[in-house]
Structure formats: structure tokens, C-alpha cells
């Protein structure tokens, strides 16, 4: 049987597309198609990834200009049909700018770019994207200047009530408190899904946690996605 094909949308300024492409092919056992941002057609609709980087230089606001790309218009249309979509880092920012996900990613608490390894607790294992991950706490690098999740108190409550919060920054043993919060995100939020549960956005980079050792948690993340297809 030929391998299935997953789409990765690439913008001018994306810089995690290569890393993501490698991780997806290797650990989801699929082929990929890189879709250039001005392509209004996305042929392979099994699953769509929006990679990290600085789309259009992140001028104006992170992810804001990317929402105007023809490919993103198609992503929005397909999202309504239930196509699984994952946005990582800048991809998450783009998805919130498109209003496919709630809230906004604003300047980190200290207003500095931050790159480090962080533990992340999977607080909802009852989603398409997380149910097959064989761990409850994973370690992924983060690398962003605008990763502080923010929304209104009402929205936050709604996200919680609907079980839409998926990842939270935590300690190695799963404690969730201020000292483990790298950027000032509300309630340590690192990743959420939409109400229909087919769109995931997360700031940490699972695609950067697949190298040098078979124990790396990015591998569990991508292997867990295999069953989705």
C-alpha cells in the first residue's frame, strides 16, 4: 500500500518546516507535501501541519500576515470539514490569528525570546492528538518571543469546561505552578484544541525532540499521530 501523504504549509519566513518534515516522515511513516503559501489548493487533506518560524517576518503581529495567504484560506475551509490540523509555535500563532483557535499569543512575560527545554504535562489525553502518546509528561524545547497564552476569563473558563486545554508547562514530575511557567502563560497553558477537537495548537516543538536518542518525547508525539490517519 502506498504511504499516505500529509501536507505542511510553508510561508516565506517559516524555519521549522524542514525539521517538521523529517520528523513527520520518519515517525508517522507517511510522505509529505510542502504546500507553498500562495497555493490555493491543498491536495493532500489527510492532515495539515503549520510549522514554526517567522512567517512574513512576523511583522505587524506574529502570524498575522500569514492569515492572508491563499493556502491559509484553504486550511480554514478544510478545518470546517474536520480535517486534523496541527500548528506548532508560529503555526499556533497563525491558527489563533485565523480564529481557528481561541485566545492570543502575546509577548513573553519578560519580553525576551526564550529558548530552553521545558517539561509539558498532557492534561487532556482524551483527544485525537494525545490519546496514543504513551506518556503523561513530555520534554520539548520551547523557542519563542510571543508564546504567552492569553484570553478573557470567560473564554478561559469555557476552554476548561470543554476540556480544550491539552498541554501545560510543568515540572519534571508534573507539578503545574508559576515557577515552571517559562513565559507567563495563563494557567501555564502550552497548547489547546478547538471546540470540535480537530485543531491543535502548541508552542513547544515536538519536532525538535526526535534526535540523538530513541527515548526523546517528540518520537512518542509523532508515533501517536499515526493512528489518526
Amino acid at each position, binding site marked *: 500500500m502506498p504511504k499516505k501523504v500529509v501536507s505542511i504549509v510553508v510561508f*516565506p519566513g517559516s524555519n521549522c518546516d524542514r525539521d517538521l518534515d523529517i520528523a513527520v516522515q520518519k515517525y508517522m511513516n507517511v510522505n509529505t507535501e510542502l504546500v507553498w503559501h500562495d497555493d490555493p489548493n491543498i491536495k493532500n487533506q489527510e492532515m495539515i501541519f503549520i510549522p514554526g518560524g*517567522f512567517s512574513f517576518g*512576523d511583522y505587524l503581529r506574529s502570524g498575522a500576515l500569514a492569515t492572508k495567504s491563499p493556502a491559509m484560506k484553504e486550511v480554514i475551509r478544510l478545518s470546517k470539514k474536520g480535517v486534523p490540523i496541527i500548528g506548532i509555535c508560529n503555526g499556533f500563532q497563525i491558527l489563533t490569528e485565523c480564529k481557528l483557535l481561541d485566545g492570543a499569543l502575546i509577548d513573553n512575560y519578560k519580553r*525576551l525570546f526564550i*529558548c530552553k527545554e521545558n517539561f509539558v504535562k498532557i492534561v487532556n489525553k482524551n483527544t485525537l492528538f494525545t490519546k496514543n502518546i504513551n506518556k503523561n509528561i513530555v520534554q520539548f524545547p520551547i523557542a519563542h518571543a510571543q508564546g504567552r497564552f492569553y484570553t478573557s476569563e470567560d473564554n478561559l473558563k469555557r476552554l476548561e469546561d470543554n476540556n480544550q486545554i491539552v498541554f501545560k508547562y510543568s515540572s519534571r514530575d508534573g507539578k503545574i505552578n508559576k515557577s515552571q511557567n517559562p513565559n507567563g502563560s495563563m494557567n501555564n497553558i502550552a497548547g489547546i484544541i478547538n471546540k470540535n477537537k480537530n485543531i491543535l495548537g502548541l508552542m513547544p516543538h515536538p519536532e525538535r525532540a526526535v534526535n*540523538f536518542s530513541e527515548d526523546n518525547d517528540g518520537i512518542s508525539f509523532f508515533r501517536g499521530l499515526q493512528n489518526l490517519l
Partner: protein
Amino acid sequence: MIKINKRIVSEHGISEDEFKLIKEILQREPNLLELGIFSVMWSEHCSYKSTKKWLKTLPTSGEKVICGPGENAGIIDIGDNEAIVFKMESHNHPSFIEPYQGAATGVGGIMRDVFTMGARPIANLNSLRFGSPKHPKTKQLLSGVVKGIGDYGNCVGIPTVGGECNFHESYNNNILVNAMCIGLVKKNKIFYSIAKGFGNPIIYVGAKTGRDGIHGATMASAEFDDHSEDSRPQVQVGDPFMEKLLLESCQELMKEDAIIAIQDMGAAGLTSSSFEMASKGSCGVKLFLDKVPCREDKMTPYEMMLSETQERMLMVIKPSKKKSTLRIFKKWGLEAAEIGVITKTGNMEIFFNNSLVGKLPIKPLADSSPEYDRPSEKPFIKFKKENHKNFSIKSALIKIISSPNHSSKKWIYHQYDRSVMCDTYFSSEQSDSAVIRVHNSTKAIAVTCDCNPIYCNSDPKLGAEIGVAESWRNLIASGAEPIAITDNLNFGNPEKKEIMYQIKEAIKGIKTACEALDYPVVSGNVSFYNETKNKSIFPTPVIGGVGVIKNISKSKGLRMNEGDKIFIVGNSHGHLELSEFNRICNKNYGSPPPLDLKEEIKNGTFVRNFMKKHNSIVTGCHDISEGGIILALAELAIRNEKGLNIKIPSNVKNSKNWLFGEDQSRYLLIVNNEDIIKKVAKKENIKLQEIATVSGDKFCIIKKFEISVKKLIKYNSIWFENFIEK
């Protein structure tokens, strides 16, 4: 037309003799445009006029050298049809005037030097020197420079994996920002800047030309005074997004067989890029400045030729590939224009509004650029008389690990994306050199930046030798085979005898060490006139070393496990002069530790071979440098959050000298089997001393003192945040 007078000539930084030479070359008076071109081409920054004579003496070739100095960057062979392109370059003057943009454009410039040659950048490093933390500008400069470096590299998506950052009052008014980039290229896909083919089109691509940075190269070739801040308009503004588009479009174009020659428009912009390409190819050029994409209205030929607007490239293209070239640039949304043509005349002919506005012979301008053998004289170093202080071993250790120069640099490196591209095995806080995997292989590259200006100020030759040796040692400690270096020579005003002495001596030192270690210099940069109101920086010849690791899994970091034993490789004499210990005691005089290059080779070869043959026995490795044995051990304890039981050998007479001495050519080897290392060292006649056992959670020097590792970590981690947030 403006008449050229003495004042205009001297404002262009051209001496009377140089002006005479210009008139001889042209056989007439130059016009303003031509004078401007001469001034940047003959600036210290572009012409190396004060150092050419000395730089020529450096060893630049070797079995693995593909391309030495003279091109955009140096290239070494790493086997399997792959090569590494690397260079370090300074952006000191602009970074002092405008720290964020100055540092950012420094990173952008060095990356362009690397990807111009066909390589994809795979790592950035930087070597930073700031003034005393007590100086009122230091905080703002530190924040701006670090943010500028981070924002630029992060956006382009190249990991910033290491470097160094130090504070010293000699940099109060002249900070140093040296950026290094390494790139990976297929050996048969290297691009050079040799223009060829009469009639071939010259294509301009990238940012539109503005009035920024005019005379930047000349600024970098003059001292600062009270009005230096007025030079802010000479500092260029960086656009990392544009750089990313340039990088990707050039990579795409390089896959086609289109480019004959390519050169980035760096210092002296369109002038130096067009002259250098034509000069190397021994041909002429016609430029049509009306076609240059401009950002501002009514720009004059003078401004267009001298602008240092960033993120621009110039290339000579095969005529048959013009269409596809322009198509690729269009895809990436880049402005591209055909602005000239290669000719046989050997002249640079500059047209504007259909008239010839400048005509210069290319070869004579490049070849007869001045070369000076400037007078030099050993400076008399006057030491300040200061009251000496006394410290116990414990309080000295705490003082050093909580000092600006030895505190954890977490605040800095957290601002740098180190994990993008997924090939960073060790960033420089995890190992003595940063280790980057060669994509899709088991090979890796090790990189490090080193310099000790305190040593260099006292003895520039020995100081520079030690810089080279330390970089060699750092590569070995990470498990690499050292291959070659790039150097960045930061000094004061070479027209002063004492400074010229420092420059000549430092180059001699680099030569001596590189020859002995078979460690050639493949690229480099000079930055002079780092002076303000007659006060020069300490001589700072920064060495960027590159090595190769055949099997990345055998690379070593600063790792240790419970129960491991730590051994010192090499002789410890207890040299305290100019050490960190003496500096905290206010004893700022004396000589650097002696360096025996034969012993350096012997110890380094032992460590390398031992790691090779007994790789699984070695848990980690760390060189012993500033702060001596005790600091190297404390760094291991802090890094691993593990305790050490340290036993000073019974024959040691003065434990302070022994613990804090900065004798050269030494390593700490952390091993899980003491018998084998003892046996091998004995056989090879290597000085080996057992010093510590990894155990518990306390840093304990038996019969002296103990302190919990938690406390050490706290002392080590607070300075930067306190300094910035205060």
C-alpha cells in the same frame, strides 16, 4: 560639480600621500564619487593596509584547506564530498553606537559571507566584550547586543550555539561584537566571487538601497570621540526576514547552473562587491546606477555606491539563465535588477542618467592599495598601585563564580534559539565547544571562540598563542580533531607605535601556535581604531576554532556520573600571575602562564587518543583555563548538580596556587575506570593526577571546606538577572 580640496580629502580619511597615489593612478584629479570609492576601498576595514604585511606570514594552507583567506570565508574539507565554510567578523563600532541594530547586522553580514559561497549556515557563535558593569552604558549595551544577535539569528532560523561574553573596563567606550558563522556545503557546489565572461549580466538582488551606512567602513577605521553618537545614521538597519528570503532564494538558484560569481554587499556595499569580483576575475565592469533599486528619492551615484544597506547581493549570471534567475527571486518576493555588465576594459565605468560619472581602473585600485610597515614599539605597561585583598579558598571561589565573567550565561543563551535545525548536539554551556551534527550523517563539527585579553595586554604574543592553544584544547575536550581557525583581530589605533607592536606580536603568536599545532588560519577580519579619546581597548585577538568529530555519539561534554573519578592531565605549577584569583585580590600585574606547545600537543594527543580507544570509559572532559583547577571542578559540579570529593595531592605545598593556578595545556578527564587511564598514562609518560570523586551533593575539598552544590548554583546564577533587572 564639487571641487575636491584638502578638507574633503581628509574627511574621507585619505592621507596626503594616498591622495598623490590616487592622482598617479588616475592621471588626473578624482571627482567626489571616485574619491569616495577610493576612500572605502583603501580604508583599513577593506584594504588591511596596516596588517597585510604581517597577515601574509600566517600559515593558511593544509591538507584539509579548500579555500584560505581572500574569499568571503574560509573552507575546509570534512570528507564525503562535504565542506565547512566559516568566518568571524566584527561589528564593534556600530554596536557601540546602536547596540541592537549594530549586533543584528553583524550577524546578518557574517551569515551572508557564508551562504554567498553556496553553504547553508548551520550555526552562529559570538564573542562579546563589554565595559565594566559599573559603567553607565554597559547594561543597555549588553541588553541591546544580546537581543540584536538573538532576534536576527532566531528569525533566520540558524541556531546560535555558543561563544563568550566578558566584561572589562578597557571596553567601556569600545565594546566588541564579533560574530562567527559556520556553514555546510557540498564540495562540488562551492561558489566564488571571481567575475568572468565578457557581456555577462550583473544582477542585483535583495533590499532596496537607502542612505543607511554610508561610510560605515570608514567609520570602522577611525577612533571615537565625543561626537561619535552623531554617527548613528551610519549604522545600518537589519531585516532578518529579508535575509531569510535571500538565503532560501540563493539556495534555490544555486541548484540551477546559473551563477558565475556571487558576492554579498557588505562593508562598502556596491563598491567593494563590484570591485572585488571584477578584480579577482581581471575584467572590467559597466554599472548603470539608474537601474539600482532605491528606497529613497533622488539618491546620488555617490550615495548608491557607498550605501551599506543590508541584505543585498551582487552576482554575475549566465545570460541564458537570466529569466529563470529572475523568476526564482520573484517567487521569494525579492527585488532583482540587471544593473551592469562585465567588460574587457579592466575599468569600472559608472553611468548615471546616460552619462559617465566615474571611471576607475580596477586592478591598480585594488593592487596598489597602500601597504604600511607602521613603526612599532613595546609599550611600557604601568600597573596601578592598588591595595591587595586577601581571600580564603572558599570565599575566593564564591567571589569568582558569582562574578560577571564567570556567572552562568543563562540570561544570554536563553535568548538564542539553539535547537532550531535539530542538529545541535551540545551548545557551548554543555561542552567545551559547541557540537553540531552534520545533517543526515553521524559526523559533527565542533566550534569554539577564545581569547584572554588580560594575558594579551601583558604579552600579546604569548596571549595570542594561548588563545590558539585554548581553542585547540576546547575542541579536543569535546572529542574533535582540530582542523583550522578564523581570527578576529581587535585592537586600537595602528598608527600608534605601541598598538602596532601589539598587533605584530599577536600575529606572531598566532603564527607560532598555528604552525606548531598544524592548525591553519583560513579566514579572518581586523578591527582597529577601537579607541576613544586616546584610550585603547586591551588587545583582543579572538580565535574561532573548528574541528571535526567522526562519530557524534563519541563526542564528550561536561558530564559526570556518581562514582566517577576525575583526573588532571598535565603539569600543575601554580602560576597565579594574571589569574582570576590574583585579579580579585587586586594584583593586576605579571606575565601570563608559560605555554609549551610541545606539551600542549603531547597532552592533547593523549586525551584525543584515549577518548578514541576508550570512549566508553570517559564520561566527560573539561579543559582547565581561567580560574584554574578549582573553577573547572566547580563548573562541573554546577553543570551536573552533583557533589565532588576533592583531595589535594599530599605533595602540594601551596594549595591556593595549586587550585587557582592557570597553567596551560591541562584537562580534567572524568572516567568510570581509574585503572585503565592510569595504565595508559604511565605507558605514554603523561602527567596524570587523581583529584576528585563524584559523590553526593556537596562540593568538598577535603580538610579545607565544603559547600552544598545548591548554594554554588545559586551564587553562580544570580548576577545577570540582578544586573539587568536592577
